[in-house]
Structure formats: structure tokens, C-alpha cells
């Protein structure tokens, strides 16, 4: 809080985050002055209209970075591509219907199935784990598990795939030790991929559900116990009903994460397990028939539609759980 650093940030902020400088009616030059001036009346109101300027860079960035790709998908999915015989640009629904047929439909359905299965298992496994951790008496243990979950939940991707190849792949350490291949184990299948996905989905559930578990008031449990309820009855009639919105919300979030995952599957199974994200990657690499260059955009649109449905379920649930656990 010394006066020394002020001259340094002032010019820098004027150049880069110009919004910050224009948030008030005072110019950057006078802003750094340390003289004690009384604030002019009405400053808050004029600051309000100018405050929009501070958000302008973000708005602009969003329009360009997010808006343009969205427009590209929306237009591209419904027009023929430039390598089509008619030169491209004409309206068509062929991309969309094509993206919902044959191998692409199998892939979309495969993705939905995989996401449903892994999200369900992760929710069922993650809840007892989160409860065991949240009610632990050791603060260090709780914090260690939470930070580990934070790392593992973001750990999807290539390293995860390689780790499991080294563990449960055809020449993986555990596979060799236990002779799993003789029992029909194969990592590079639907079920193998599910085992891998759980590695980041379970921690993700632990992170999302722990605040809700910590919101379960000890008084509720005591009240139930005083009324003669067993632990089972407490869970059946008190805890679970309060937790249901959070649990469903967590499930939906996991579904979304699993549905959107790309790197792990790409590094591990390539396209031997049909998944929509793999198909998009394939189609984008030019692996489509001539004239179907825009098919990838239609596939992207399919994915966004599914993800939007997911969010439409998630947001109201989150609001409901927030009401109880405030």
C-alpha cells in the first residue's frame, strides 16, 4: 500500500485495460495523484454508464472468439461446402441428416451410452467416497483428497490414456501380473474406456458434491436420531431428498464431461470405439467424402444440441440445490 508502485501500473493499465481507466470520470493522470480531493457528487451514476467500457474488451473478444465460430457452425451445417459440385453455399439439410445416419448415428449413440454409463457409475461410487472424506476427522486428509481430486478431475487427456495403457494395456504391468488377457480383458474397448473415464469422473463428482454434503446440517442428523431414526432412515428420508438435486446436477455435469472428452479416447483407442468426438476429429482432418466438407460442422451442431439439453437439465437443478444448502 505504499505510493511507490502506483506510477508503474498506471501507464500500463491505460494502455492495456483501458476499461479500468475509464471506469470513472477521473483521467488516468489525475487518478494517480495522491492529493485528497473530495469525490464529486453524482460520480457513481456517471461511472455506471462508463463502466460498460471496462467490459467492452471482453464483449468484443467474446463476439469474435465465440460468436464467429458459432455463426460458422450455424451457416456451415446448413449449406453445401465449397468442394461440392455446385460450388458451395447453397442451403441444404443433407449435412444434418447425413450426420444422423449410419456410422455417425452409431457414434453419437455410442457417446451417449458411454457418458450415461460412466456418469452413473461415477455418481454411485463418488457419493460414498465424498461422504467418507467430508466426514473425516483429519483436516489434512480432507484437504489432500480435495486437492488430489482437483488435479485428477482435470487430468483427462493424453497422460491419462498412457497411464492406463501402461497399467491395463496389452503389455501393461497389471495385465501381465494378473494375466488379465486370458480372462478376456481388453482395454481398447467400450468397457475399457469406461474404466479409464471413471478415473477423472469420480474426482469430479467428489468436487461437485462435497459442498452439498458439507451443507447437510449436523442438527438434521441429531433431530432424526432423537426421533429414533436409524442411520438408514436418516439417509432415506432426510439426507438423500436434500441431496437429490445436487446429485442429479453432478450426474449431468459428469455426463457432459464424458460426452465432450476427446483426448483420452483419441490417444487410447483411436476410432476403434465409435464416439462422436472421434468422428468429428476424423471429419475435420478431411476424412470424409468429397462434397461433404461441412458434415463436420453438422456433427458439431449435433453435439452442441445434446450439450444444451444437458445444461437445460442442469441449471434448474443447481438452483434448487442452492435453495436448500444456502
Amino acid at each position: 500500500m505504499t505510493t511507490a508502485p502506483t506510477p508503474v501500473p498506471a501507464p500500463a493499465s491505460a494502455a492495456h485495460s483501458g476499461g479500468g481507466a475509464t471506469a470513472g470520470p477521473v483521467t488516468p493522470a489525475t487518478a494517480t495523484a495522491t492529493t485528497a480531493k473530495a469525490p464529486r457528487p453524482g460520480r457513481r451514476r456517471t461511472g455506471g454508464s462508463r463502466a460498460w467500457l471496462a467490459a467492452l474488451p471482453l464483449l468484443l473478444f467474446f463476439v469474435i472468439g465465440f460468436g464467429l465460430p458459432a455463426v460458422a457452425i450455424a451457416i456451415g451445417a446448413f449449406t453445401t461446402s465449397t468442394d461440392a459440385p455446385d460450388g458451395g453455399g447453397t442451403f441444404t439439410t443433407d449435412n444434418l441428416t447425413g450426420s444422423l445416419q449410419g456410422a455417425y448415428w452409431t457414434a453419437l449413440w455410442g457417446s451417449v451410452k458411454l457418458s450415461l454409463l460412466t456418469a452413473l457409475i461415477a455418481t454411485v461410487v463418488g457419493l460414498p467416497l465424498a461422504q467418507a472424506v467430508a466426514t473425516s476427522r483429519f483436516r489434512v486428509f480432507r484437504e489432500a483428497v480435495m486437492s488430489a481430486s482437483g488435479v485428477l478431475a482435470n487430468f483427462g487427456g493424453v497422460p491419462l490414456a498412457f497411464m492406463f495403457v501402461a497399467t491395463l494395456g496389452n503389455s501393461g504391468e497389471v495385465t501381465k501380473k494378473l494375466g488379465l488377457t486370458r480372462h478376456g480383458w481388453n482395454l481398447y474397448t467400450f468397457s475399457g474406456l469406461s474404466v479409464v473415464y471413471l478415473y477423472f469422473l469420480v474426482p469430479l463428482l467428489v468436487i461437485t458434491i462435497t459442498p452439498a454434503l458439507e451443507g447437510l446440517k449436523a442438527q438434521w442428523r441429531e433431530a432424526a436420531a432423537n426421533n429414533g431414526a436409524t442411520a438408514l432412515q436418516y439417509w432415506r428420508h432426510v439426507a438423500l431428498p436434500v441431496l437429490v438435486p445436487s446429485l442429479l446436477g453432478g450426474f449431468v455435469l459428469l455426463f457432459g464431461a464424458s460426452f465432450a472428452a476427446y483426448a483420452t479416447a483419441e490417444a487410447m483407442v483411436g476410432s476403434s470405439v465409435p464416439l462422436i468426438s472421434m468422428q468429428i476429429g476424423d471429419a475435420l482432418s478431411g476424412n470424409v467424402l468429397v462434397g461433404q466438407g461441412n458434415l463436420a460442422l453438422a456433427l458439431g451442431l449435433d453435439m452442441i444440441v445434446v450439450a444444451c439439453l444437458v445444461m437445460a437439465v442442469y441449471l434448474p437443478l443447481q438452483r434448487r440445490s442452492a435453495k436448500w444448502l444456502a
Partner: protein
Amino acid sequence: MARLINRIRFGRGLVLLICGIYFAVPMAASLWFSIDDNKGGTTFRAYTELLNAPGFTDSLVLSLELAAVTVVVLLLLLVPAVLAARLGAPRLRPVIEVMCSMPLVVPVVALTTGIIGVLRWGPDYLQDTPLFQTIVAIQDPKFPIVLIIAYVLMALPFAYRAIDAGLRGVDVVTLVEAARNCGAGWLRAVFTVVLPNLRSALLNAAVLTVALVLGEFTTASILGFTPFSVWINSNGKSDGQMSVAVSMLSLLIVWLVLLLMSAVGRGRKAARS
């Protein structure tokens, strides 16, 4: 009652044990795999050869550069907007909130499709305009700006939540009013009063962003750039042992950074109180 407590303890122990095995075994096995010489002994070949592998340093440096620039750009865009919404224009808040949740709805693969769609406009429609040069320039393989745009978008929801959570614990409006009453200008109030109070929130946002950028694979691989994660993948196809070694190393690095951050944050809080 005692029996019930015992049962609960037992159940908890069992759950933790099973999950512990599931999460520890792959790590232990990978560690073993990376030093196993297949003759019953151990070798650190994978780790020593790592540093000399072609592309290792280049891709790692590119990833670190991308992470650094993404953090800077993200904070420069997000912090003024969030502060403005808190201080001057409350009606901005829902707008920013929606903006920062939208990237969550769109899967990364789909976003990448859109980006490729936009990049294709270059050769298709904009050949003779200066925009074409821009589109070429942002795809420079030495420093792909297009990836920065994508990463900032992807990190936006997480960074926004981190900063928003930080702001919830600080009464910024009162702080700024107090600073202004003491004669500080807007800039001074923001830089010397608000931002120091948000330090741990900004740190959190930065850490999440760095972790995201270092691990990101989808966009970079589809767009054809080679940051660290893409290098691991392509290299792993040729040398399995080394790729597992790198994977373990990258996990360790992220973990250490996160632990360090939380330790720093806690130390500061303890020092203040």
C-alpha cells in the same frame, strides 16, 4: 450405538480403501512401467533420454508460452469487466455470467469445428482482403494466436468462478468508496485496494488456466499445432515407455503447482490473522 459407529467406521474405511486402490494402482503401475527394463531390473533410460528427444523442449516451451499469454490475456479481459459489473454497472453482471457459462455448454470439439469453419473463410471468401493476412497470421505454427483465443474461451468459466468466489468474500463497493473518500483515484483504488484483496482469487484463476492450457489436446491436435500434450501423444506412438514417463512427470508438475498455490494462499491468510 457403539456397534453402529464401528460399522460406519468400517464402511468408511472400506470405501476409502477401494477408491485408494483404484486411484493409486495405475499411478504405481505407470511409474513401474516407466522404469521397467523388461528383464526384471530397473532403468531410468526413459527419463534421461527424455531431455534429448526431438521436439521435447520446443513443445514444452510452446506450451508454457501459451499458458503464460493465455493467463495474461484472460485476466486483462475478465478482471476489468467483472469489477465494472460489481462497481458501476450491476446490469452487466448477468451478461457476463451468461458469457462465461456459454463455453461450458459447447464441447471443445464442437468449438474447434467452429474455429476451423471460420479459418476456412479465409481461403474461401476473403482471399483478396487484409482479413486473409490476419487469418494466416494467427495460425503461425511458432506461436498460434488462434489457440490463445480458444484457450481463453475454455478457461473463461473457471476463471470467472474463481474470481467471482473471491469477490464474494470482499466488499469491493465499500472498499472502493473508502479509498475514493480518502482521495484515491479509480485506478489507485483498483490497483492498491481491490486487486491485493483479490490476490488469492486471481491466483486460483491463473492456476486453473495454466493447468487447463498445459493439458489441452483437442484443439491443438485438430488444428495441427504441436504443444506439449500433442507431442506426448505423437511421441508415445513410437516410444511407449518414454511417453508414460512424460505423463507421470506432467501429472507431478501440475500437482506440485496446485499444492504450492494452496500452501501460499493458506500461509498468507494465517499471516494476516
